């Protein structure tokens, strides 16, 4: 067996296509991701125009019978569930195998991951497109969609778990071949991300399999909305770290090199990822501060842990900025801050991701306000929240992913990026458009404007909101221009980019303080996983026991759209 595998491996190496299958898996995932983002993003522009009473929905009524709220459902599902998950599965397949410098333990399982997710996506898309699942991406019961919507979304999650299995198997093989060596940082981070994801999706899996799917199939008569919300947010907050950590992998292990420098500290990067594994999950109830049926004391405990997860975020901020400073100084930069101008702002992959980081700093600060228990009463369910997560998932994550594709797509397609200038213009227009959009969404939230609402048709739309709403549309239109630049550049790269003779090397960053500067326990998984599980049990068991022991499961489903 071993010799056959080694023989095949060697033959492939001769063809310099060791990672041919992995490249294809990554490419397939990226294509689905960016097609989803294109459709989902378009509805974002529709929404911003509708806020200003420019209703484009009527013109597409035959294909969008559910109008504003069906468009809003597509915007949420395609952008934050489909785009993110597909990109991340493709990206971590790439990062994991390249960092271990060995193929996936099972390539069939790699394709099965994509296959199961895509069967799920197609199933979920049918009711979504037919206006039978206009329940937004949070699908709070007792609003009731077609059962295949829930079954489809569940399969997307189940498919993503297969990558965790595959990465763990690949890690074992690598470990057997490299006894005593420290796990390469990017692979360590990919494993932490997928492990955290697998652990946190237990919540949504329970919500789907125990509560929603049997109920949507008519097997049980009623449901329990607060129990469902609690299970949803068990997954729903850590999902934002599932989106962010893959961007952090790039910020930590690649951007310093793209900037011409080194990562400041490898051990500190491991510490922050371990803390994300431990602290991402037992904090989900900060999305339920205003829920009835959940104790204010447990809400406060979750607030404490949420503020705690701010700590590894600050570690990341320090480490990444120190790495950028290292790069700026390596390129001859001087002064306290003037080194910033010595960074390679003409490199699209680098500039795009640094711009994403800058807006993320504001997103992080706003997130701290949302997390602040009673202070959240000012902003909960207002457009402040939409403004917030367009800085985080809409920029830190999405713009970073776009930046990654400026080198990853050329590598996968073996073609040079079509236009560096289009890419730079894309990054800056996204940055400016999002800054405007998000600023005014935050501000309108403070003025009391609700989120997830067809504002242009609301009888309570007032003069004060009207004064600032045009800026929301201006920001969205600038981002629309940015998206056109992005997609044109990508299509032209794949079809007309200059062919490269050889696949370029993946440019990993060296570290100023390397993996061996840290203790060996930073390279372990099991102890941290045990701590994570213990914290989850402490922070969730009392509330879940209270909800389950008092539930009557008697709330019938409603189709109110």
């Amino acid at each position: 067996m071993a010799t056959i595998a080694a023989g095949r491996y060697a033959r492939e190496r001769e063809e310099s296509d060791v990672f041919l299958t992995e490249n294809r898996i990554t490419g397939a995932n990226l294509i689905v991701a960016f097609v989803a983002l294109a459709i989902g993003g378009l509805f974002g522009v529709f929404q911003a125009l509708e806020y200003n009473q420019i209703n484009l929905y009527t013109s597409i009524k035959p294909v969008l019978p559910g109008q504003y709220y069906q468009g809003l459902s597509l915007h949420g599902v395609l952008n934050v569930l489909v785009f993110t998950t597909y990109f991340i599965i493709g990206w971590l397949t790439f990062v994991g195998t390249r960092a271990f410098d060995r193929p996936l333990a099972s390539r069939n399982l790699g394709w099965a991951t994509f296959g199961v997710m895509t069967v799920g996506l197609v199933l979920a898309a049918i009711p979504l497109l037919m206006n039978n699942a206009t329940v937004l991406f949070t699908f709070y019961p007792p609003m009731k969609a077609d059962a295949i919507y829930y079954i489809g979304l569940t399969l997307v999650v189940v498919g993503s778990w297969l990558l965790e299995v595959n990465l763990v198997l690949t890690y074992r093989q690598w470990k057997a071949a490299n006894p005593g060596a420290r796990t390469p940082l990017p692979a360590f981070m990919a494993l932490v991300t997928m492990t955290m994801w697998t652990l946190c999706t237990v919540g949504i899996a329970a919500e789907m399999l125990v509560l929603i799917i049997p109920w949507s199939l008519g097997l049980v008569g009623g449901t329990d909305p607060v129990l469902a919300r609690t299970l949803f947010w068990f997954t729903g907050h850590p999902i934002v770290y599932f989106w962010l950590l893959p961007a952090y992998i790039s910020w930590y292990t690649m951007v310093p090199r793209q900037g011409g420098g080194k990562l400041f500290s490898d051990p500190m990067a491991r510490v922050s990822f371990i803390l994300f594994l431990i602290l991402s999950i037992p904090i989900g109830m900060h999305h339920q501060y205003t829920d009835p049926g959940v104790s204010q004391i447990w809400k406060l405990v979750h607030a404490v842990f949420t503020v705690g997860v701010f700590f590894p975020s600050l570690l990341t901020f320090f480490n990444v900025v120190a790495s950028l400073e290292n790069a700026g100084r390596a390129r001859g930069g001087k002064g306290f801050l003037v080194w910033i101008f010595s960074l390679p702002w003409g490199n699209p992959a680098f500039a795009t991701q640094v711009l994403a980081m800058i807006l993320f700093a504001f997103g992080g600060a706003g997130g701290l306000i949302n997390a602040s228990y009673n202070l959240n009463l000012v902003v909960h369910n207002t457009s402040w929240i939409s403004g917030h997560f367009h800085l985080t998932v809409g920029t830190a994550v999405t713009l970073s992913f776009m930046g990654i594709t400026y080198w990853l797509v050329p590598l996968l397609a073996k073609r040079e990026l079509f236009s560096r200038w289009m890419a730079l213009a894309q990054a800056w227009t996204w940055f400016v458009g999002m800054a405007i959009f998000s600023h005014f969404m935050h501000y309108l939230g403070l003025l009391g404007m609700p989120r997830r609402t067809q504002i242009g048709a609301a009888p309570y739309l007032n003069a004060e909101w009207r004064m600032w709403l045009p800026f929301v549309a201006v920001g969205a239109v600038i981002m629309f221009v940015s998206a056109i630049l992005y997609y044109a550049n990508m299509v032209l790269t794949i079809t007309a980019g200059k062919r490269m003779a050889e696949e370029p090397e993946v440019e990993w960053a060296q570290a100023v303080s390397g993996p061996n500067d840290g203790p060996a326990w930073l390279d372990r998984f099991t102890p941290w996983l045990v701590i994570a599980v213990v914290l989850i049990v402490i922070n969730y068991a009392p509330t879940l026991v209270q909800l389950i022991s008092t539930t009557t499961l008697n709330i019938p489903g409603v189709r109110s759209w």
Partner: protein
Amino acid sequence: MGNNKFMHYAFELAWILPSVAVPVAILVAITLTAFAVGIRVPDVAGRVDPKALSRTPPFDQPGVKELAPGRYEVAMIAQVFAFTPGEIRVKAGSEVTFEMTSRDVIHGVKISNSPVNVMVVPGQISRVTAKFDKPGEYLILCHEYCGSGHHVMAGRLIVE
């Protein structure tokens, strides 16, 4: 080089200390405002059968009740796409306790210029208390997507 390494540790420490101090300060502020000043988030207030609202006090008689001078209780039912009562009148300076629930799907209630911001869920009672000092008209709006008419779901609270 050794000096360089020392500087690294110094920088790390200079960053880590405030990174711990800032979250701790925030938590102290939150806890004080919640439990000393009394700006609370909603708590467990019991369950109710949405099919039996007409038989379950206080939802059998939705409306405004003056318990004592300057103290009101409002029993409110949310359903697609209206609040009952849709208009609430109280005297300036009163303390108003809202008891709310939903007859169908999840709704939300936000009253402008007040700390009232709560989810209204079928099967659950949402209880919040707020003081209204300034006379005027306050907008009550549904802030959770509840269906095709979500954006028309609103009411008003008039402080006289």
